[in-house]
């Protein structure tokens, strides 16, 4: 629970965010808000086929269209050899990345780019696109894991060999990777268990649903340098990825971060940037590319769909002794779904001696999956947390108590390897158990469910610079895009360190030439890791300020301490010097005061959340209404509680959409049928109640303020909490997402047909 008394003046307060004014007045510039003189507009020509070989592309007629200034195709991009690299927190194969950006020999999904055009107007660019003749040889396609793994399935990549022993003889397949993890003897554990429950689950792909479509402006000069304005979760990542697929030195690119209108993981890769850069080079003018909403759905990162099977065995006292999971993820057109992370997280909240986990990364003719908030974990948790609900019921145990008895804590060897340090899982369970929500009465057709979730935090690389101005104010130069209020948390930590008012600190997210390297804003890492760089740089500044005071007083620096934003002489014999006074005289004491900290953040914590939800199910229609929702989450330390709550509430809201409405619907040709916000139904204000939050604070010993990442774990338990509540209300177990009114209704119908309360799925 948020402590009422902390030793801090700024950390933990709800100050106004530094970038707020720009954002409520419309002045903040997002990806699509840049206009350069002479700028051209680009469009991307995309594949109408789910799977085809490109025989030829004829662009000559397009170049004749008045206003068209440049047309590019696969011929304008270098061949990239297969190489796996870490890109932020996920693995990227540069060859796949380059082929996803612009198709080479084959198109692999409807929406796969085959050409791009820049023209003086959008209309001319669209006319140019229509004039491009592409000759396709169409192949059969696969749209689900089952189709893709069938023995006679059409193969997407003839060089894709699974990493298992039999693969050599089997030859190429659509299974990219198998992930295995074993501990103890899970089969024997099931034999000994008093109750064993095995269930299968189906999860459809969903989209991150950021409101801002991908957008970029590129201005490439005659010397072969390019300035790129775009919104992303990491402009350094954009630079690295773009430079690699173009075979450029990264220093030829300067990436300027626009404000980002939501990412949720989906903006940790690139789509448009290399196209805009090459179009601009060919046309000799700046080029802007903005995706339409339909393009966002059809060609940018859905979260993978999946098939999952989970088995859990427990003793009658509620001890879980064995757990097994099999998960097949729809990676889309290229390998690299989050199934690996799903394997790591699937049983991570619990202390289980015998575990067997297998994950398959399956390619199919849909857009390449991208990261989405705690990638992989919500899918795993949907299965595990609903099976646990069944185990609790079978053992007549309270579901929170079952989790509590098996909860991981400090010293437990996690199912993904490392031994947990201080963690706050049990505290989140206690927070929900003692919450008024837990004991509130329910009416007919209403039900209550709980679920828990786990997610990692990433550390990775961050750099930050602090400049003290002559008026004693401070600038923070930050290289991590601010996606949900991180400038506010940076300013608060800096205020605490420097001892000056938060209003006297101006944090800016600056371009790739203006600050050192930073990894992505992802993995819930920014307040943790970039915050650590800010704290270190501030401590350096304070050391310098003490030195300057010592110089002014002609004393040893050891005699100077820093308190409340002032240098004080230990003897108390000298009037204290404020940072402003020291800054004003800096020219006489050694020049400007500034510091940079560049670090690889160590000491990451992990995050847990437990959630409780009440629903009402309309037995006539199957419609599920969320009546009440409470989330408890361990934040380590909430630097700015409002934005911590915001992350928790936002994660839950996305989870509610995933649980009840959202899904990709494909027709038999592989075309997404619901590629608009009208048909892809995300939660609106009238769908939701207030989302109550309980910030649990079990400080992370690895961070100067105890911070844990808060951005992601909130989405992990939500679909299961709702499924468990639906069961409580109706006696029906839903094992397919989304639990739309149609699906719930037909489950209710099936039950009334046979007059039983048999679970369906």
């Amino acid at each position, binding site marked *: 629970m948020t402590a009422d008394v902390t030793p801090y003046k700024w950390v933990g307060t709800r100050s106004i965010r530094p970038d707020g004014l720009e954002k409520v007045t*419309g002045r903040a*510039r997002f990806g699509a808000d840049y206009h350069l003189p002479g700028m051209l507009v680009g469009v991307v020509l995309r594949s109408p086929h789910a799977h085809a070989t490109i025989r030829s592309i004829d662009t000559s007629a397009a170049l004749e269209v008045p206003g068209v200034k440049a047309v590019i195709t696969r011929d304008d991009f270098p061949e990239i050899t297969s190489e796996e690299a870490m890109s932020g927190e996920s693995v990227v194969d540069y060859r796949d990345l380059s082929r996803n950006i612009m198709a080479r020999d084959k198109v692999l999904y409807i929406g796969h780019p085959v050409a791009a055009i820049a023209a003086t107007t959008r209309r001319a660019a669209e006319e140019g696109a229509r004039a491009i003749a592409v000759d396709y040889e169409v192949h059969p396609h696969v749209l689900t894991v089952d189709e893709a793994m069938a023995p006679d399935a059409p193969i997407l990549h003839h060089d894709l060999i699974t990493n298992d022993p039999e693969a050599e003889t089997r030859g190429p397949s659509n299974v990219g990777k198998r992930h295995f993890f074993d501990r103890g003897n899970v089969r024997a554990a099931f034999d000994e268990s008093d109750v064993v429950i095995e269930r299968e689950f189906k999860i459809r792909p969903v989209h991150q649903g950021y409101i801002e479509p991908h957008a970029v402006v590129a201005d490439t000069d005659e010397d072969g340098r390019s300035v790129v304005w775009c919104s992303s979760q990491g402009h350094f990542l954009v630079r690295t990825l773009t430079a690699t697929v173009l075979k450029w030195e990264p220093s030829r690119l300067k990436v300027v971060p626009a404000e980002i209108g939501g990412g949720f993981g989906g903006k940790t890769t690139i789509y448009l940037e290399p196209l805009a850069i090459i179009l601009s080079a060919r046309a000799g003018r700046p080029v802007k590319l903005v995706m339409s909403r339909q393009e966002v759905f059809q060609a940018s990162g859905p979260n993978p769909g999946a098939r999952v099977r989970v088995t859990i065995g427990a003793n009658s006292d509620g001890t879980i002794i064995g757990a097994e999971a099999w998960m097949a993820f729809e990676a889309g057109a290229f390998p690299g779904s989050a199934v690996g992370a799903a394997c790591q997280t699937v049983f991570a909240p619990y202390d289980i001696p015998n575990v067997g986990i297998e994950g398959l990364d399956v390619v199919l003719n849909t857009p390449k999956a991208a990261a989405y908030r705690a990638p992989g974990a919500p899918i795993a948790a949907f299965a595990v947390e609903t099976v646990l609900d069944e185990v609790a019921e079978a053992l007549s145990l309270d579901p929170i108590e079952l989790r509590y008895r098996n909860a991981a804590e400090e010293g437990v060897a996690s199912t993904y390897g490392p031994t947990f340090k201080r963690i706050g899982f049990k505290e989140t369970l206690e927070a929900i158990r003692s919450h008024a929500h837990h004991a509130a009465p329910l009416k007919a057709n209403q039900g209550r469910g709980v679920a828990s979730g786990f997610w990692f935090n990433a550390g990775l690389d961050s750099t930050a610079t602090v400049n003290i101005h002559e008026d004693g104010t401070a600038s923070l130069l930050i290289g991590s895009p601010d996606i*949900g209020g991180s400038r506010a948390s940076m300013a608060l930590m800096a205020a605490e360190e420097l001892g000056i008012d938060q209003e006297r600190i101006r944090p800016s997210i600056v371009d790739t030439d203006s600050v050192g390297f930073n990894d992505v804003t992802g993995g819930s890492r920014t307040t943790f890791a970039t915050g650590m760089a800010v704290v270190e740089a501030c401590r350096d500044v304070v050391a310098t300020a003490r030195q300057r005071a010592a110089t002014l007083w002609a004393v040893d620096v050891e005699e100077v301490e820093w308190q409340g934003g002032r240098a004080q002489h230990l003897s108390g014999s000298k009037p204290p010097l404020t940072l402003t006074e020291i800054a004003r005289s800096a020219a006489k004491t050694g020049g400007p005061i500034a510091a940079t900290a560049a670090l690889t953040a160590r000491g990451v914590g992990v995050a847990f959340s437990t959630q409780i939800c009440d629903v009402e199910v309309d037995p006539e229609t199957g419609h599920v209404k969320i009546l009440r929702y409470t989330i408890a989450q361990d934040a380590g330390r909430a630097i700015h509680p409002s934005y911590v709550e915001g992350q928790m509430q936002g994660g839950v809201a996305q989870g509610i959409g995933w649980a009840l409405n959202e899904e990709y619907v494909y027709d038999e040709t592989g075309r997404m049928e619901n590629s608009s916000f009208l048909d892809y139904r995300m939660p609106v204000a009238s769908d939701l109640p207030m989302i109550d939050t309980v910030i649990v604070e079990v400080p992370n010993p690895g961070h100067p303020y105890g911070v844990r990442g808060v951005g992601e774990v909130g989405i992990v338990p939500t679909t299961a909490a709702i499924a468990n509540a639906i069961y409580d209300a109706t006696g029906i177990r839903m094992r397919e997402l989304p639990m739309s009114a149609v699906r719930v209704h037909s489950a209710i119908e099936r039950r009334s047909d046979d007059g039983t309360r048999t679970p369906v799925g």
Partner: protein
Amino acid sequence: MRSHVTCTINGDEVEFLVDDRQTLLDALRDELQLTGTKEGCATGDCGACSVLIDGRLNCSCLVFAREVEGADVLTVEGLADADHLHPIQHAFLEGAALQCGICTPGLLVAAKALLDRNLKPTEEEVRYAIAGNLCRCTGYDKVVRSILDAAAEMRDSAVVS
């Protein structure tokens, strides 16, 4: 075909030339450089492009620019009065009602449309008034609270003045 449009935008008389098929949203953003109004979908489904036309809430992506001839248009850039924020803008800042902020211009305009006609909305009325505005970041909790706070603030100052 291109049309010549004369209208009032945020209190200023404005003239511009537009393609007949150009939306008001595109005209605002591309011709007049008023990029505070955002495009999330261009199909009327997200509300990021919300503006007031003669006081009525509209998705500017569904209005042809030539249709605002003679009209009075208010965008997010016109909400603040010189250097005084509108109480709704103030409440959004105080209440942390924005995370990424891309939906914020549209939500502010939709909230103004509500409070212009009803200074005492219930939570449910607020939720329905902004149901055309998608926000993917906040779960709407702090947005709804901030609009209720702004209403209370505006009621108080209406009593005083």
